[in-house]
């Protein structure tokens, strides 16, 4: 049974998630289909159906530190199979965005760092640049040499590009990033 301590409840998180995801959490009747189909549920402490229930019961920001949020691979099996048509994957996206905004702790792994490194190469070059991304990510984790054994073979086969991409419309992409940052500062 899922219970929530009375002094820990708050409507704020549920409302923020519903606003960001466009999902009505109250229609979930806990059939747990999202959890049975979830490929990573077995690797996380909290299952998708439990996240849905806790949100509905009024859990607070402590839920943003759930390990499932960052082990979720966005495969969307949950949303596809939900009998009530709830976009559970959109709820997970909303939780990730709120976790970043509110500075919640990231459990195992470093998906936010990876995402930042990925988007930085896109902002700079207009297209993603794998070697730049991998270097930035590994520098961030402090384990530069980890998992680099395949590089020589990949370079030799032409399975990874050495030089940054050219030809992308960098001006438009830079404008998009700038405008989105601006719209966030006006809101805050």
């Amino acid at each position: 049974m899922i219970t929530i301590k009375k002094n820990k409840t708050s409507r704020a998180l549920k409302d923020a998630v519903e606003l960001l995801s466009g999902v009505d959490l109250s229609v979930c009747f806990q059939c747990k289909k999202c959890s049975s189909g979830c490929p990573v549920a077995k690797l996380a402490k909290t299952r998708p159906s439990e996240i849905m229930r806790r949100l509905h019961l009024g859990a607070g920001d402590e839920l943003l530190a759930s390990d499932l949020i960052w082990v979720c691979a966005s495969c969307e099996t949950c949303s596809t199979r939900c009998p009530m048509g709830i976009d559970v994957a959109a709820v997970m996206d909303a939780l990730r965005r709120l976790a970043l905004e509110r500075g919640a702790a990231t459990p195992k792994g470093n998906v936010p760092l990876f995402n930042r490194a990925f988007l930085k190469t896109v902002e700079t070059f207009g297209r993603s640049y794998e070697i730049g991304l991998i270097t930035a990510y590994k520098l961030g984790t402090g384990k530069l040499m980890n998992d680099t054994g395949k590089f020589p073979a990949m370079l030799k086969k032409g399975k990874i590009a050495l030089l940054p991409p050219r030809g992308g419309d960098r001006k438009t992409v830079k404008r998009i990033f700038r405008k989105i940052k601006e719209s966030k500062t006006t809101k805050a």
Partner: protein
Amino acid sequence: MKYAYYPGCSAESTASDMHQSTLAVARALGIDLVEPKGWTCCGATAGHQTDRLLAVSLPAANLTKVQDMKLDMMVNCAACYNRMKVANHEISSHPAIRKGVRDALDRDYDGSVKVHHLVEVLLQDVGLPTITKSLKRSLNGLKVACYYGCLLVRPPEILKFDDPENPKSLDQLVTAMGGKSLDWPCKVECCGGGLSLSRTDVVVQLSEGIIEMACASGADCIAVSCPMCQVNLDLRQQDINKQTGKNYQIPIVYITQLLGLCLGIGPGELGFNKLMVPASNVLEKVHERA
């Protein structure tokens, strides 16, 4: 038959084999592909995990370029295909998102550019009868596990690609090529996708499940249409073997590579040399059609 072809960032790097084989197959079948000038990244998983408006504006920057070309867009990368279609859906169904995109791009876009996956173009626009007539070689009974993954089929109400639980489009192509498409249970399982670097442990575990099931089903190879699936199953096979003590050696090929072979195109032009697990069993099996 002419399309604006959006290659996607991996086409220039880890999926240059997908890109090469797409171009070769299109040429052989008379599909005219034009790249939109200055195309940019769709934002991928990192985009939608970070910000909704960013995740829609990045694809929209490309969709507007295609709108100016007065063509439909064709994509082969399942991830880019997914982001393009979701962006169109978000823009056409939420006025606030459309307004946000207008501010970000300095131009209004209504979400109306049609987006097709290459497999849809092959099956619906070119058609199996024409493809079959153009085949010079046969897969000769090669046992193929068609693996669709996530982004090609989900969310089904937006993508409308195929049956989300038991898709058959890749299988239809394999059958037309004279291969034996296998009935197996992992067609739409997840390989771990974009977690390849940040949670390699998860990718290894999920990808092993898929590879194990394909081997148990008797597959000679796995056919894919997504650069992330290809890299996770092919490049990570070594890690899987190291961590599980098993010795999987199953080639992970793009459907366009198989089709290219059967259209009579050489393996070099199709990027077969770029696969980490060599596809020599596939190349040996393919024969001239009787």
